């Protein structure tokens, strides 16, 4: 089936403005008759819940943490992009649009990216009005820095805690609505199913994580803003609770999963140590503004103290290979380049899976105090984890799974193929294509939540009658029974392996076979292993405790059960995409000098998969992508 993204046609510069004018409105007095469920209160969901509440809708919002302020958006360090052109270095909405389309390796929808670039400027204004303490210069103007994949300084930041500050902004707006009773907040609730009535999304089934009770909630529309799924790799930069559960359950109810194979491997994480590790920690990419990346030229030097390796014996491979972007090459390119150096036997550190990120030149140039001011907290964090001082010797970094560009398929209105089901932020597939540039996920989350969904959801609301289906509808009961059934089953297995052990097993298969580089053989190997681990899970997992209490093992087991199904679809997507693009690198498809080779003739589409049952092949639907404003070209950062 060919999918229609419903993007507006005509000149792109006015596409969003024209579209907004053409959309239907909901009369303010009618808004309160509608109830909207918002699952997830990170940047995307928090902003959406606050704004929809403020507009007058009845909003119920859900998160699995104890407070919306703890959503994983909080971990973002580096910054958020906007096309303000405050530094007058040639930025514009068009340039941000262009960089994003190109950065995503031409696998995103142009109109959505345009809209993102356009509203990026409103986001900064909005956050400043909320009191987000962005960095300023002495005269009082906002400060900017640059990020991977861009040659202009368009990134706004709040020390190394930009995500936290933006989230606190959204959380404060949300708090205000909770106080005003337009939003009802349900914390420590995990959505475990989507309720679909006659093909339309009408509610959700949750588990109350404190009492274990299974609860039903009806809504005239459901918004999923549940973040990313790269914990399918077990070790990743995501928080421990990040999962595919919400979007996977929606997939099982008929929503299409788009481009799940596009996962971003971030180049600047602290390398793994030991085998008991539970997560990998990201060091903000902004470090690459001042840090130079290198490995020793000769493998024999790798064991030496870095400061004893002479300048001429160092290989600044990013500067060598990509002279115009240098250390600021985009993430997929920088990650792969690091892996190449390590595969070549020139990796550093105990595991030889590391490259240096060196600040000596920057410290010599601007002095340590300024570096400290720019990145101090990152140096502290690095020292806590590695016991090494990054000012005195270069840091060691290595790529790690970080971000999911894929997610549920949505049209231009952020609505999935299930009417009434909207998906925002990292949970959808829309704007990043095959690779996300730095500082653009925060931008997308807030764009979707503050400035897109309030308009587009009205179009849908204006077409339905509010409150027609409530919790007494049989579909709610059916869904709750299914959820209970799965929980009881997991608790009854009483096998020998812990959830953690099985998650590690899945993770190692995903990293080895579906990680930074994939081949036909590795993907087929994964497709054999995943069902085996899934089988073992359903026959040999040991989940302690009961259903009717706070039970973290049970929570983890449910998330793993979903990953074990989702992983298979992700791998199938990777196998079917016979090209290399962005975060998806198929070793069979590369140029002579090892760069990704896209195949626009055959693969210029979003792959949207329809789930057909665990043991059946999913069905592929394609949304062809048209590039009318940015010419399809080989993506070069040389």
């Amino acid at each position: 089936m060919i999918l229609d993204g419903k993007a507006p046609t005509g000149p792109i510069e006015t596409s969003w403005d024209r579209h907004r004018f053409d959309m239907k409105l909901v009369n303010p007095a009618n808004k309160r008759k509608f109830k909207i469920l918002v699952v997830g209160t990170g940047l995307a969901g928090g902003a959406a819940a606050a704004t929809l509440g403020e507009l007058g809708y009845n909003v119920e919002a859900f998160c699995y943490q104890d407070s919306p302020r703890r959503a994983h958006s909080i971990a973002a360090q580096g910054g958020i992009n906007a096309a303000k052109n405050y530094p007058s270095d040639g930025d514009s909405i068009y340039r941000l649009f262009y960089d994003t389309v190109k950065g995503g390796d031409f696998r995103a929808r142009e109109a959505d990216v345009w809209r993102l670039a356009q509203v990026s400027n409103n986001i900064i204004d909005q956050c400043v009005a909320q009191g987000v303490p962005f960095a300023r210069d002495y005269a009082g103007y906002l400060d900017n820095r640059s990020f991977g994949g861009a040659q202009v300084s368009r990134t706004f930041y709040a020390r190394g805690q930009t995500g936290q500050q933006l989230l606190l902004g959204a959380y404060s707006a949300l708090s205000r609505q909770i106080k005003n009773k337009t939003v009802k907040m349900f914390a420590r609730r995990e959505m475990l199913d989507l309720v679909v009535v006659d093909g339309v999304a009408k509610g959700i089934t949750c588990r109350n994580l404190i009492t274990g009770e299974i609860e039903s909630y009806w809504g005239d529309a459901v918004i999923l803003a549940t973040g990313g799924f790269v914990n399918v790799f077990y070790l990743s930069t995501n928080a421990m609770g990040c999962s595919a559960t919400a979007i996977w359950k929606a997939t099982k109810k008929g929503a299409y999963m788009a481009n799940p194979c596009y996962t971003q491997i971030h180049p600047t994480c602290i390398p793994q140590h030991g085998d008991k590790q539970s997560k990998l920690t990201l060091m903000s990419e902004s470090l690459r503004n001042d840090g130079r990346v290198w490995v020793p030229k000769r493998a024999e030097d790798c064991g030496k103290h870095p400061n004893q390796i002479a300048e001429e014996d160092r290989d600044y491979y990013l500067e060598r290979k990509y002279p115009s972007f240098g250390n600021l090459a985009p993430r997929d390119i920088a990650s792969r380049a690091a892996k190449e150096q390590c595969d070549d036997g020139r990796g550093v550190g105990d595991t030889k899976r590391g490259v240096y990120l060196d600040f000596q030149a920057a410290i010599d140039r601007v002095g340590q105090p300024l570096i400290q001011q720019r990145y101090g907290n990152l140096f502290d964090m690095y020292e806590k984890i590695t016991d090494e001082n990054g000012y005195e010797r270069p840091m060691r970094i290595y790529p790690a799974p970080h971000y999911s560009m894929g997610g549920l398929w949505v049209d231009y209105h952020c609505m999935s193929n299930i009417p009434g089901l909207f998906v925002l932020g990292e949970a959808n597939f829309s704007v990043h294509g095959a690779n996300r540039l730095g500082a653009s996920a925060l931008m997308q989350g807030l764009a979707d939540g503050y400035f897109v969904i309030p308009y587009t959801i009205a179009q849908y609301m204006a077409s339905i009658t509010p409150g027609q289906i409530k919790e007494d509808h049989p579909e709610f009961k059916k869904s709750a029974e299914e959820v209970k059934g799965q929980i009881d089953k997991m608790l009854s297995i009483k096998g020998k392996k812990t959830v953690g052990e099985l998650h590690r097993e899945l993770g190692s298969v995903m990293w080895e076979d579906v990680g930074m580089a994939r081949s036909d053989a590795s993907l087929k190997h994964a497709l054999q292993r995943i069902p085996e681990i899934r089988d073992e899970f359903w026959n040999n997992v040991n989940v302690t405790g009961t259903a009717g209490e706070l039970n973290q093992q049970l929570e983890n087991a449910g998330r793993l059960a979903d990953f074990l199904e989702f992983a298979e679809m992700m791998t199938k997507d990777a196998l079917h995409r016979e090209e290399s693009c962005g975060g998806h690198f198929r070793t069979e498809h590369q140029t002579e000098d090892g760069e990704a080779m896209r195949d626009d003739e055959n693969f210029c589409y979003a792959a949207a998969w329809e789930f057909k049952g665990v043991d059946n092949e999913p069905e592929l639907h394609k949304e062809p992508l048209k590039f009318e404003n940015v010419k399809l070209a080989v993506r070069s950062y040389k």
Partner: protein
Amino acid sequence: MNLTLHVWRQKGPQDKGKLETYQAKDVSPDESFLEMLDEVNDHLIKSGKDPIAFDHDCREGICGMCSQVINGRPHGQQELTTVCQLHMRQFKDGDEIFIEPWRARAFPIIKDLIVDRSALDAVMQAGGYASCHTGGVADANDLLIGKPVADYAMDAAECIGCGACVAACPNSSAMLFTSAKVAQLAVLPQGKPEARRRVQAMTKAILDEGFGNCTNHYECEAACPKGISVKFIAKLNREYIKSMVPSSAE
């Protein structure tokens, strides 16, 4: 290294709770404290026991979810460090470690080491925001904020809402937490119009939620993983007094 852990176990709010002793074996100095507990839990599960419940999420020191009192100190003995960022190299072979939940009237225990901190959200809902609508705001550079003011606001804004300050305070006061938000918004032009109302509403909320009073013990600052300074409490006090003086507009 090998360690002996004494962990607070409590099935639910009504349960009495007690310390139980476990051994943590072959702990690597590079592990984080929570990774060490994960291992202990894996052993507990395998021996058919209930694993220790504790709150955590980001494991990066930023979400504020983790919350354990370790050897009598919230987040443990290392300065400016959350539990999830505490590494086992801070301990020695043979150490005995006491692990307990946050203790404060406003934070009822839910299970084991997990407490309910929603009272902090209630304080925020009382006024921890600048009331601006989405859209229709001025250009960001129309409001000039000098670097020292922006830095001061940012110093205050770094609070992660973990509640260690409350757990450390002999009065279970939430003053440091509240002062950070009040101070951040009080110095910024965006927050000024509501400053009087905010400080009054938020200080009332901390009492309503069952937090104690501040009597200047400074334990909060010592326990805070983000280095939030007690100078913000002084700022909150000044803002409070200022708010009591009738303004000519009212």
